[in-house]
């Protein structure tokens, strides 16, 4: 399968994402320039972290209108696999492909550290290769990662099991003290209702080899590949 990694002006995790899927996971991977409207035959799209358009206006607010996003929106709405990481998550909520908003961290500081994620479901495109009790050690690096949604939509997210990752302690307990940014419900990553679009603030592409401090991020990319390979080939 082939991954496409979008590069916006100001993206800075595009090379890490590329290295993760190409060299660690071993899949064909191509950079997709923000001015293009062509996904180059990609089977999964990564919207990487960074500071697209300098985070001007709101994080992700300008990138969301770039030409490549027209193609990504169309791809996502027809069931294509899309993962937005950090700034990519911000772009997805601004584009309306995921519900809610990402506000300034409640403590107002940029947070860069390892966190532990409780995996809420292992029956998804993105977590099929995770064990049921799996806790992932993956770093965060953001200033605007405080997931917010109003109560009604939050209830819908929970009811539809769209919360995929929650900030937890080392043993997987979801506790207020494990919440690094003030996100409601310790939410670190959510799915769209159909389950083909994931947004997450932590950076799995920065945790794909033990020398980096953790290789737990591999599970997410490997799950996507396993899901793709299990599908009957398109005719």
């Amino acid at each position, binding site marked *: 399968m082939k991954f496409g990694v979008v590069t916006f002006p100001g993206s800075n995790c595009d090379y890490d994402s590329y290295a993760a899927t190409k060299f660690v996971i071993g899949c064909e991977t191509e950079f997709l320039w923000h001015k293009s409207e062509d996904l180059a035959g990609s089977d999964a799209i990564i919207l990487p972290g960074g500071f697209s358009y300098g985070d001007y206006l*709101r994080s992700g*607010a300008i990138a969301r*209108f770039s030409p490549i996003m027209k193609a990504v929106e169309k791809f996502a709405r027809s069931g294509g696999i899309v993962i937005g990481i950090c700034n990519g998550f911000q772009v997805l909520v601004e584009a309306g492909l995921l519900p809610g*908003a990402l*506000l*300034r961290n409640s403590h*107002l500081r940029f947070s860069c550290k390892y966190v532990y994620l409780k995996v809420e479901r292992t029956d998804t495109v993105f977590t099929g290769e995770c064990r049921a009790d799996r806790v992932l050690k993956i770093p965060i690096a953001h200033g605007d990662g405080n997931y*917010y949604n109003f109560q009604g939509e939050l209830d819908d997210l929970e009811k539809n099991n769209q919360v995929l990752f929650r900030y937890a302690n080392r043993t997987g307990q979801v506790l207020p003290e494990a919440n690094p940014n*003030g996100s409601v419900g310790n939410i670190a990553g959510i799915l769209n209702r159909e389950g083909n679009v994931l947004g997450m603030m932590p950076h799995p592409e920065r945790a794909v080899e033990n020398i980096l401090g953790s290789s737990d991020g591999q599970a997410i990319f490997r799950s996507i590949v396993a899901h793709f390979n299990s599908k009957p080939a398109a005719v």
Partner: protein
Amino acid sequence: MKKAIVYIKLKDGVLDPQGKTIALAMGNMGYDEFRSVRSGRFFELECEDRSDLEKRIDEVCRRLLANPVVENYQVEMLS
């Protein structure tokens, strides 16, 4: 040319850590009477006049300048 001023403010109930921190600083400076501060931003738009200008401004507020999930906006037209 017309001028429009767009004010953007977080909706009531949405946490505004920046406003809270500013309020804290004001308290530390001895300005105890200010109970809360809500932060926001504004934009000055210079626009060519057209019959549907107000509708267009409203549209660009919804689509770009404000995030309707968490923010409200208010437009003031100056002639």
